[in-house]
C-alpha cells in the first residue's frame, strides 16, 4: 500500500465530511514557488501550515488538468495529467501526502459533463461518423433537438448546438461552445471517466467535486436536467469507488432546487454531499432586507437527507453569486442591492467576492459566517475571503474573483517573485482591498483581524460536532429581524440567535421546553440567566449574534 493512502493517515470514518470545514482554492492563484507568475503544487504545499492553522479539514482544488483555459480550466484537454504550469504528477502526489500528514484531505474538481474541444477525444470524434470515438460526443444534423433545454451561459451563448465544419454536423454543449458535452449513452465514455477517477484516487485524492452533474444525459421532451440515467450512472460511480477505496467523498455541483438536489443523495448510495445553492442568495437577501424569512423558508423547503449525506454550504465561491435558484423578483432585488454597477452582473448572477458584497462591513462578514456555520451542513470557505479580499470587476468573466492570494504587503502581494507583467492576473492594488491593506501577514499579527477571528470561529465550530451532525429546528421569534434556531445532537443542544438588522434589536423566544437550563455563550463561555417559564428575552447590537450551549441540568434527563 502506498503511504499516500488515506488509511495510513486517518482514522477510518466514513462520515468524516459531515463535520469538516472545506476550503476552496485556485491553485493558479494561491502561491507561486517557481517564479513564473502562476501558482503551483509546490507553492501550495508551502502554505499547508497556514491552512492547518486556519483549521481546514479538506482542501477543494479547482481544475488543474491540462487545458486551453478558455473556461478557467473547466475545459479539460487531458483528464490524466497535471497542467505543466502547476507542476508534475509527482509534485501533485507529494502535495497530497503532505496535506494528509497534516490531517487535511484533498478533493478536486472533476468535470464529468464535457471536455475542451481540444481534447484528443473530440479531435478524433469530429473527424466523421466512422472513427472509433465518433459517438463519444452528442452529434446532430439539426439544431431542433432537445429544444426544451435552457441555455445556461446566456451572456455568451445563443444555442446549445454549435456547427462543426470538420464533421459537418452540430455538437451539443450545455456550457461554452468550446466545451462539447460527452455522450454518456455510449458506455465507453462512462468507462473512460471511471478510469480517470480511479487514476486520481490511486494517487491519494480523497474525492471529487463533480462539476455540472445534472447534465450528463439528454432526452427529447425534457429539460435534459436531472434525468434518471444520470442518477443511475452516478450510483455506478459511487458503487465502484466504495468497492475499492475507503472514506472518499463525492460532492455534487447541482445548481437546482433542494427538492431536486436531494435526488443526488438517492438512498445514501449516490453522492455523499451536494451544494445547497439556494440558501446562499437568501442569506444575502435576508441581510439586506433585515428579516429572517428568506432563510427560514428555504430551509423549510429543504427535504431531509439520508444520515450518511451532507449539504455543502458556502457564502461565495469561484463562480458568480448565482441567482438561478431565485424568483425573477428576487433576482431583480438582488441585482439592485448587490450589483449597482452592471459590470458586476454575469449570466444569472453577480461576480463579486464576499467582502465587497458586504461593503467591507466587519459585523456583516462575521454575522454571515455565524449563520453559515450554524446551519446544517459543512461550510466551504473560498480562498481569500478569510482575510476579506476584494474583487476586480474590470477583469473578464469570473477572473475578478480569482486574483492572486494576498500573503504580504510586499511586491505582488507575496504571491510570486515573478515580474509583475508575468503574473497570470494582476493582484488587487486598490486602496481598500489591495494587498497593501489586506494581507495574511498583517492580519496574522493583529489579534482583532478578520483572519484571527475566523480561525477562532472555525475552531469553535469544530469543537461542537452538533453543527455538522445535529438536527435543525427554526424557532418562532417575536421579532422577524431575528433568526433563531436550535441544533441538537445526542445530549449536545445549541441555540443560535442572529440579529439581521443594522439596528439594535430585542427578541423574546419561547424556550419553555428548556426550562431550568442555563445558557452558556459559546465564544466567551459566560453564563446567561437561567431559562424559566416566561419567554426568554435577548437583546442584540446591530448585526449581533449569540450562540449558546444549553447543557442539561444535573438530574434533568
Amino acid at each position, binding site marked *: 500500500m502506498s503511504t499516500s493512502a488515506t*488509511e*495510513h*493517515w*486517518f*482514522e*477510518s*470514518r466514513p462520515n468524516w465530511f459531515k463535520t469538516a470545514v472545506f476550503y476552496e482554492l485556485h491553485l493558479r492563484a494561491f502561491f507561486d514557488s517557481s517564479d513564473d507568475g502562476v501558482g503551483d503544487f509546490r507553492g501550495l504545499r*508551502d*502554505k499547508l*501550515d*497556514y491552512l*492547518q*492553522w486556519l483549521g481546514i479539514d479538506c482542501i477543494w482544488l479547482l481544475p488543474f488538468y491540462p487545458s486551453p483555459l478558455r473556461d478557467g480550466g473547466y475545459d479539460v484537454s487531458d483528464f490524466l495529467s497535471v497542467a505543466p504550469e502547476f507542476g508534475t504528477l509527482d509534485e501533485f502526489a*507529494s502535495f497530497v*501526502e*503532505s496535506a494528509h*500528514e*497534516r*490531517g487535511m484531505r484533498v478533493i478536486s474538481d472533476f468535470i464529468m459533463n464535457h471536455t475542451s474541444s481540444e481534447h484528443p477525444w473530440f479531435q478524433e470524434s469530429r473527424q466523421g461518423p466512422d472513427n472509433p470515438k465518433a459517438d463519444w460526443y452528442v452529434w446532430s444534423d439539426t439544431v431542433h433537438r432537445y429544444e426544451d433545454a435552457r441555455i445556461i451561459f446566456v451572456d455568451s451563448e445563443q444555442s446549445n448546438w454549435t456547427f462543426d465544419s470538420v464533421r459537418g454536423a452540430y455538437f451539443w454543449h450545455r456550457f461554452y461552445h468550446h466545451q462539447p458535452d460527452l455522450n454518456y449513452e455510449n458506455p465507453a465514455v462512462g468507462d473512460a471517466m471511471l478510469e480517470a477517477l480511479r487514476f486520481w484516487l490511486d494517487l491519494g485524492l480523497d474525492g471529487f467535486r463533480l462539476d455540472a452533474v445534472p447534465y450528463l444525459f439528454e432526452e427529447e421532451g425534457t429539460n435534459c436536467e436531472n434525468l434518471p440515467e444520470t442518477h443511475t450512472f452516478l450510483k455506478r460511480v459511487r458503487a465502484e469507488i466504495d468497492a475499492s477505496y*475507503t472514506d472518499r467523498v463525492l460532492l455534487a455541483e447541482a445548481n437546482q432546487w433542494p427538492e431536486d438536489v436531494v435526488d443526488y443523495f438517492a438512498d445514501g448510495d449516490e453522492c455523499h454531499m451536494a451544494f445547497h445553492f439556494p440558501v446562499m442568495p437568501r442569506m444575502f437577501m435576508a441581510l439586506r432586507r433585515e428579516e429572517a424569512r428568506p432563510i427560514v423558508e428555504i430551509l423549510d423547503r429543504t427535504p431531509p437527507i439520508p444520515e450518511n449525506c451532507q449539504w455543502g454550504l458556502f457564502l461565495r465561491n469561484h463562480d458568480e453569486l448565482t441567482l438561478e435558484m431565485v424568483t425573477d423578483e428576487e433576482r431583480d432585488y438582488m441585482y439592485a442591492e448587490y450589483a449597482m454597477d452592471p459590470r458586476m452582473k454575469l449570466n444569472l448572477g453577480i461576480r463579486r467576492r464576499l467582502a465587497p458584497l458586504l461593503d467591507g462591513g466587519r459585523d456583516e462578514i462575521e454575522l454571515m459566517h455565524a449563520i453559515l456555520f450554524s446551519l446544517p451542513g459543512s461550510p466551504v470557505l473560498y480562498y481569500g475571503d478569510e482575510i476579506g479580499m476584494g474583487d476586480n470587476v474590470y477583469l473578464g468573466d469570473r477572473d475578478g474573483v480569482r486574483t492572486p492570494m494576498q*500573503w*504580504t504587503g510586499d511586491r505582488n502581494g*507575496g504571491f510570486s517573485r515573478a515580474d509583475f507583467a508575468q503574473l497570470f492576473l494582476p493582484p488587487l492594488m486598490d486602496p481598500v482591498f489591495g494587498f497593501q491593506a489586506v494581507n*495574511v*501577514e498583517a492580519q*496574522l*499579527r493583529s*489579534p482583532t483581524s478578520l483572519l*484571527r477571528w475566523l*480561525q*477562532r470561529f472555525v475552531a469553535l465550530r469544530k*469543537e*461542537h*460536532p*452538533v453543527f455538522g*451532525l445535529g438536527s435543525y429546528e427554526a424557532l418562532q421569534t417575536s421579532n422577524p429581524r431575528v433568526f433563531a434556531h436550535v441544533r441538537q*445532537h*445526542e*445530549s*449536545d443542544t445549541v441555540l443560535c440567535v442572529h440579529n439581521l438588522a443594522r439596528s439594535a434589536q430585542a427578541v423574546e423566544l419561547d424556550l419553555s421546553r428548556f426550562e431550568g437550563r442555563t445558557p452558556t455563550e459559546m465564544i*466567551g*463561555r459566560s453564563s446567561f440567566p437561567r431559562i424559566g417559564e416566561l419567554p426568554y428575552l435577548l437583546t442584540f447590537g446591530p448585526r449581533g449574534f449569540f450562540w449558546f450551549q444549553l447543557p442539561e441540568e444535573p438530574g434533568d434527563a
Partner: protein
Amino acid sequence: MPDPKSLSSEDLLSIVRGARWFAAKDRTPESAEIVGLPVQDGPVTLAIVEVRFAAGTHEHYTVALDGGDDVVDAFDHQDVAQRLASLAGVPSAGARVRSLGVEQSNSSVVLDELNVLKLYRRLEAGPNPELEILAALAAQRFPNVPALQGTLEATGPPVETALASVTAFVPSAGGGWELTLESFADDASWLPDRAWRLGEVTAGLHSALAANDADPHFAPEEPSAEALALQAAAIDEEIAATFATLPEDDALGAVAHRAEDLRDLVHELGASGPSGLAIRTHGDYHLGQVLWSTDGDWVVIDFEGEPARSLPERRRKRSPIRDLAGMTRSFAYAADSVLLLQGRVPPEGWVDACRTAFVDGYLDAADERLLPPSRSGFDRLLALYELEKLVYELRYEARNRPDWASIPVVGLLRLLEPAV
C-alpha cells in the same frame, strides 16, 4: 475468558476512566465500545476501545483484556507482557516482568532488565512519532537513545498505527528529574556540571534528526514565510484563552493583569527574522525525558511528543529551539520544586548556571542551519518558546495545582522584565 463483545459499556468505562493514561480526565465519557480486536493470541487480547463523549466526539484507547472474568486491564500480567513482547518480535517467554510505574500516557514494563515493552494507549491514525524517530536516529547511529528492538502494529480499521514497541532497557542511575531533585540534598552542582554535556547531546540529537534529506518526513525544511507568525498567533490565542479563564487567586495576582503585556511581547518576539530550518524534534523535552546512564552519559527517551497534542501536531517539523525551551523551563521547575517539596532553597544562580551551560553546550555543537543567523535572534526565539511553555504551565497549574502556580508566575514576570 469472557467474550470481548459481552463487555458492557460500563465495564469498559470502569477500566478506562480510572487509568493514568486516560487523557480526557476533564471530560465525562458517556459510553464505550470495542471497535477492534487487533491482537488475539494466546493470553493476549488487545481491544481498541472507543470512548464517546457527550458532544459526539470520541477517542480510541488500547486495552489489554483479562483472560479471566475480571474487568481490569491486564497489560502488566506476566504472561500477557511476555507474549506481547514476543509478538513485537522479541522472544520473551519466561521473562521476569517488572512494572515501570511512572508514566502518564502509556504503559511500560521491563523484561528481564534487558528490554522495555511499551503499550501505546491513546491511538490515533498515522505513523507513531516515537517509532519513526527511533528508527531515524538508529539510521544515523545516534548513540544516546535506547535501541529499538521490535514493534507491533494494528493494520486497521479503525486505525492503522503502532500498538506496542520494545526498546533496549538502559541501565541508569535514574531519570534527570529525580536525580536533580535528589542532588540538592548533597551536591547541588550535579546538574550544572552535566548541563553542558546535556546541551551537546541535544545538539547531536537535532543534527541526527536533520540528517536525512531523502526522507520527506525528516528532511529539514525552510519554514514558510508566515511560519513564525502562525506560531506567534497560536501563542497569542493561548494567552487570551488562558487569562480569560484564570481563577481568582492571590498567587496569580502578580501576572493576572499582565495579559496585554505578554501579548505585546509575543507580537515583538514573533516579528524576529529568519528562524532556521524546521526539523522533527523531540517535542516534549524536559528533565524527565533524559536518563543519566550507569556509563555516565545522557540518554534521551520518550519521543512521542506532548500527549495532549494531536498526532499531526506532534509529528510536525518545528524549530529545534522549542526543545531547548522545554529543557530550560524544566531547570526552573526543578529549582522551584525543591523549594516547594523539600523546603530547600537552591543555591543562588543555580537555574542560570544550568541554563547557560546547557545553551553553551548546545550552541557549541549545533548545526547552524537549524538556528537563526544571530545570537540575538536565537535568544528571542528561545524566549518566544519559553513564553509558550510558561502559558501552558500557568494554565495547567492554575487549574490543577494552584500551589505550584507561583512557578510559571515567576517565569512570566522574568520574561516581562526589560532586557538588561
